């Protein structure tokens, strides 16, 4: 039922003379901008944007939206991404007058409500992390990683130490090495271990007075809690290094254990994952970082501070830059719209609810694992935290069905695909994260679909999906001859 006419490119719908937005004539004496600006600064014509009506725009983008799968419409077990339900109340509240419409350079006295909330958010994130000092500035997880590594670099510089190496396991997110490189460190990747955990001996081989930071996701990207994390941390600290916790998998451990308690010195959150900021088809995210007290002076500003007046009994909130701050990592103040949604979520959950999030997420993941282990090989054991990584390797060998085939066929069954081919250490990886916001019925239906798919004809699967408007795209020709924009025919 695709509306082919309305879902042409918006540029193909353009007709000269059509328009949507209209503005009044200038009401000031000089109505010609051309008389006010130097001629050589002025364009002869406005940019050649498409010319369409408002109803063209609405029908086009509403129809396009129906070509997406989303959390609102489908089970979306994309491993490592925590695609949980996004409460609608958050959307209403984020738009409230006083939240959605305040300017970043307003005077603080007219922002006390906002600053108070951001202050509380810093406190809550510090408490959940067990790392008391928080900066809300980073715009996404990768931005948080880089920011924390710059904090570490500033700390070492201040101490007169030349530490150049950042170490991470092979199962790390690609952002870890990329962030380390941008922050000016050399990268050391530990080889994959057989049991999925960090190999302490291998790690120790690389620890010395050049070691700056060990970056680790915990639970790791295989969905396993790094059982030796306290010892890892001890060894890092012994040589004067720091431990960075990639918080991508915080959904497994909220209120159960805390990065600061298991030896982390710094971490980032993904508010858009753990605290249900909507993923927005790729963003915005929000990646605040939490660090130990001795790193607090280096955090990027601004930070919200509270001053209690003994006289009035009132608290006043203001912005401040930490004493030896690394400086800004972006303009203005963090991705506030997403931070607010995270704040609304935490206030809705309370201490018990926050812990239940992780309990239910881990229950759902283990349940799905138990339902699938007879058809999908799970190389790293029959228990997991909030997600697990299966391997389609034996399916490939037995029936010629790849992880990609499985992923594409799931779309036909009305499920978004899991993450496939990540982490890189598992061949034909299928990484499944159901989240806590799915019912047993949904998990049963998903498991049933996979049971059916693995029995289907490999030929049918190689051609999947069959029910979407488009079949598999030709990625090779896309990359060989990149077409990155529309151009008018004949130009």
């Amino acid at each position, binding site marked *: 039922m695709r509306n082919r006419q309305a879902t042409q490119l918006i540029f193909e719908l353009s007709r000269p003379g059509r328009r949507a937005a209209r503005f009044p004539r200038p009401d000031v004496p000089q109505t010609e901008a051309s008389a006010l600006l130097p001629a050589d600064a002025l364009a002869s014509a406005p940019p050649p944007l498409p010319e369409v009506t408002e109803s063209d725009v609405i029908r086009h983008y509403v129809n396009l939206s129906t070509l997406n799968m989303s959390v609102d419409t489908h089970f979306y077990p994309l491993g490592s991404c925590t695609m949980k339900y996004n409460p609608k109340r958050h959307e209403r509240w984020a738009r409230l007058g006083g939240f959605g419409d305040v300017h970043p350079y307003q005077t603080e006295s007219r922002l006390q409500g906002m600053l108070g909330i951001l202050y509380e958010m810093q406190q809550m994130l510090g408490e959940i992390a067990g790392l008391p000092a928080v900066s809300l500035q980073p715009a996404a997880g990768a931005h948080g990683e880089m920011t924390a590594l710059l904090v570490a670099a500033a700390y070492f510089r201040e101490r007169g130490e030349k530490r150049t190496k950042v170490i991470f396991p092979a199962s790390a997110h690609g952002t870890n090495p990329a962030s380390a490189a941008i922050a000016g460190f050399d990268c050391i990747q530990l080889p994959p271990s057989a049991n999925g955990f960090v190999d302490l001996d291998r790690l120790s081989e690389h620890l010395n007075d050049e070691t700056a930071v060990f970056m680790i996701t915990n639970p790791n990207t295989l969905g396993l809690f790094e059982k030796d994390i306290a010892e890892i941390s001890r060894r890092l600290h012994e040589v004067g290094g720091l431990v960075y916790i990639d918080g991508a998998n915080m959904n497994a451990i909220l209120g159960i254990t805390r990065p600061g308690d298991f030896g982390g010195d710094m971490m980032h959150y993904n508010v858009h994952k753990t605290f249900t900021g909507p993923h927005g088809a790729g963003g915005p995210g929000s990646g605040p970082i939490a660090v130990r007290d001795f790193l607090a002076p280096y955090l990027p500003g601004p930070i919200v501070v509270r001053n209690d007046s003994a006289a009035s009994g009132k608290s006043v909130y203001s912005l401040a830059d930490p004493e030896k701050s690394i400086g800004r990592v972006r303009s203005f103040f963090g991705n506030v719209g997403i931070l607010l949604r995270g704040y609304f979520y935490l206030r809705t959950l309370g201490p018990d609810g926050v812990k239940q999030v992780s309990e239910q997420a881990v229950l759902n993941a283990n349940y799905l694992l138990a339902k699938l282990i007879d058809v999908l090989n799970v190389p790293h054991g029959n228990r997991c935290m909030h997600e697990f990584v299966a391997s389609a390797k034996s399916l490939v060998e037995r029936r010629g069905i790849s992880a990609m085939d499985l992923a594409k066929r799931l779309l036909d069954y009305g499920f978004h695909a899991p993450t496939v*081919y990540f982490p890189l250490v598992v061949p034909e990886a299928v990484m499944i994260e159901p989240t806590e916001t799915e019912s047993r019925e949904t998990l049963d239906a998903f498991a049933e679909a996979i049971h059916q798919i693995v029995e289907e004809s490999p030929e049918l699967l190689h051609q999947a999906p069959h029910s979407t408007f488009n079949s598999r795209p030709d*990625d*090779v020709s896309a*990359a*060989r001859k990149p077409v990155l924009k529309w151009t008018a025919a004949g130009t």
Partner: protein
Amino acid sequence: MDPSQLKFAKTHEWVQVAEGVATVGISQFAAGQLSDLSYIELPEVGRQVSAGEDCGVIETVKAASDLYAPVSGEVVAVNSALEDDYDLLTSDPLGKGWVIRVRMSDPGELDALMDSNAYQAHCDSEAH
């Protein structure tokens, strides 16, 4: 091209030297690892490279590998035929799929490279 006439780097480039100019390409083994080539980035002619320096990129849709200069010197030619036909790199890596030519500044560096037997052993060990 007969592999026994070539020298190899651990990073899977081959070198053949004539009159102080090294022709560089990628080995059969490396070419065999590539499928769906999507882009080859070559250094500009005139660029000074040093042995072990990355001087180009070979991309497939899902992976990217660096091309490392096996010897130091000035890039005096690049194989522009590759830009029109990426598949030359995989179909004839030791011949029409050569990548760059470098006027060597230190011919002694050749001693650090492997002969074809040693390289074969290196590939066997990497495959495991």
